[in-house]
């Protein structure tokens, strides 16, 4: 449905790392890179859509305005979005709605974060009515706790092994070698992964993504604006999914203590939550899993990347390990997954990460991804999920 398409005319990032500087600096670097890539002056941007961070005080809660001020007030309209890991795509969806409604022609979408060392932790204070605080207090249920639960479940259901999980890391580490924005650019072996200290068993340190500083930005516009600014062949956003789960949500999810109850009178949803995120994006785009040339999926853990293969329809449940082993999802295979190197090579910079996924797809579809190029890529999907029930997926094509 091209009537709902917008153009991505600029993409830019600040390298991921542990730089320890103010997140605003990173965001400005990414924004200026995206503007330069688009050949659009900051003064011409009509709408700024910021993805928020909860870790950097008030400026992080109003990220759109924070970046606009740092770039120099230009009178643009502004919005700031928070949806945890899905914040970046929520910000993109907001910009798309402004463009498609005709309220603006060209918008800047930007997210950046500075993260502390170690586990992501809840906000400070005694907050006995906040499930995110309570899960740490009463259970010690860190984010990797949930990843460990899923990974063991995968081993039980499908016979996956720690060796399979390790091979995801080996693949992504190799992909990331050629990515100048990646934080970790080092090959790892299966043994490296297996020998790393266990965090939340069966997952070890190298199975679980780090937390990083980083920033990513996109300049998006109407198709008409792209045509009149020399970007007639720009990568297009074909579908965006920001769906919530459908009741009953029967998979235990961050930060909950329990799933919904499937007892009683319930209309069973057709899809689990993560499947439904992809389904919505495919429906909007009028495309399906067979159309994908590459995908950026949220590999918070190695095992979770395998779950995504099935949830985005690359294969049936239980077949992801085979897809990995036969090279289908490796660069050079039929549908490379995480050609950027994924979170395995980046670590997570929460509000920037979903935008960074779309930056990577944009470069892939332009044929500009250098040593990690997916040959002839025309269609790509990015997907992730924000805690508290935020879906996030984008389908782009050229």
């Amino acid at each position: 449905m091209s009537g709902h398409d917008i153009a991505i005319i600029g993409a830019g990032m600040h390298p991921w790392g542990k730089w320890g500087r103010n997140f605003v600096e990173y965001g400005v670097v990414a924004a200026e890179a995206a503007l330069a890539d688009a050949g659009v002056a900051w003064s011409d941007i009509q709408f700024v859509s910021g993805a928020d961070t909860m870790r950097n005080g008030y400026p992080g809660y109003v990220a759109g305005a924070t970046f606009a001020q740092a770039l120099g007030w230009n009178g643009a309209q502004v919005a700031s979005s928070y949806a945890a890991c899905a914040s970046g795509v929520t910000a993109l969806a907001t910009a798309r709605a402004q463009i498609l409604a005709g309220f603006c022609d060209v918008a800047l979408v930007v997210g950046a974060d500075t993260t502390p060392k170690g586990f992501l932790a809840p906000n400070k204070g005694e907050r006995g009515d906040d499930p995110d605080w309570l899960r740490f207090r009463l259970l010690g249920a860190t984010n990797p706790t949930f990843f460990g639960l899923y990974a063991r479940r995968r081993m039980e259901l499908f016979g996956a092994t720690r060796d399979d999980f390790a091979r995801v890391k080996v693949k992504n580490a190799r992909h990331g070698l050629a990515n100048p924005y990646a934080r970790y650019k080092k090959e790892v072996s299966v043994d490296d992964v297996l020998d790393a200290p266990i965090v939340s068993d069966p997952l070890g340190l190298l199975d679980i993504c780090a937390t990083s500083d980083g920033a990513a930005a996109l300049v998006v516009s109407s198709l008409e604006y792209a045509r009149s600014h020399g970007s007639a062949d720009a990568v297009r956003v074909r579908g965006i999914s920001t769906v919530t789960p459908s009741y009953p949500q029967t998979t235990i999810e961050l930060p909950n203590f329990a799933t919904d109850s499937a007892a009683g009178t319930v209309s069973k949803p057709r899809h689990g939550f993560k499947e439904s995120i992809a389904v919505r994006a495919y429906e909007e785009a009028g495309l399906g899993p067979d159309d994908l040339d590459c995908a950026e999926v949220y590999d918070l853990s190695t095992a979770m990347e395998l779950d995504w293969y099935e949830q985005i329809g690359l294969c049936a449940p239980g077949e992801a390990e085979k897809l990995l082993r036969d090279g289908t999802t490796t660069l050079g295979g039929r549908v490379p997954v995480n050609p950027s190197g994924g979170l395995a090579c980046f670590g997570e910079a929460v509000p920037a990460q979903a935008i960074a996924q779309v930056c990577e797809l944009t470069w892939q579809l332009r044929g500009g991804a250098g040593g990690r190029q997916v040959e002839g890529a025309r269609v790509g999907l990015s997907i992730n999920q924000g805690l508290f029930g935020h879906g996030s997926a984008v389908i782009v094509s050229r």
Partner: protein
Amino acid sequence: MSKTRVPAVENWFTTDESAPALLGTRGVESGSYFWPTAVAVSGNPDAPGEERLPVELSRTGTLWSWTTNHYAPPEPYVAPDPFLPYTVCAVELGREQMVVLGQLATGADPARLEVGMEMELVLGPLYEDDEHEYVVWQWAPLRSTP
């Protein structure tokens, strides 16, 4: 001198030491169950605004998955010093058709866990201060299981 045992959180579970239960609710119209009620952010959309009556959830279920954490989590978890690894279990309740998290019972061996085994709700220590031992719900393998 033994410390007073108090719940680490009020009204999430009964304090019957021999047979504790999670304190949930059940929708009068839908028949769906809800827990924990203090932070229940979910509702059955087929029965909006329905009355919910208090109910004790099933005390036993089957192990859906588990994981043992080998690094001390950040605050507000109160970790013992020196830190001890702990296991978090996800247990599926049959009648309620829901999966409930809880730490593995203090002293139980995670090496003996198997997905699908029968688990039972117990109370156990979460942390303590000078006067109190704070207890929380935990999942223990049913003794009959090998």
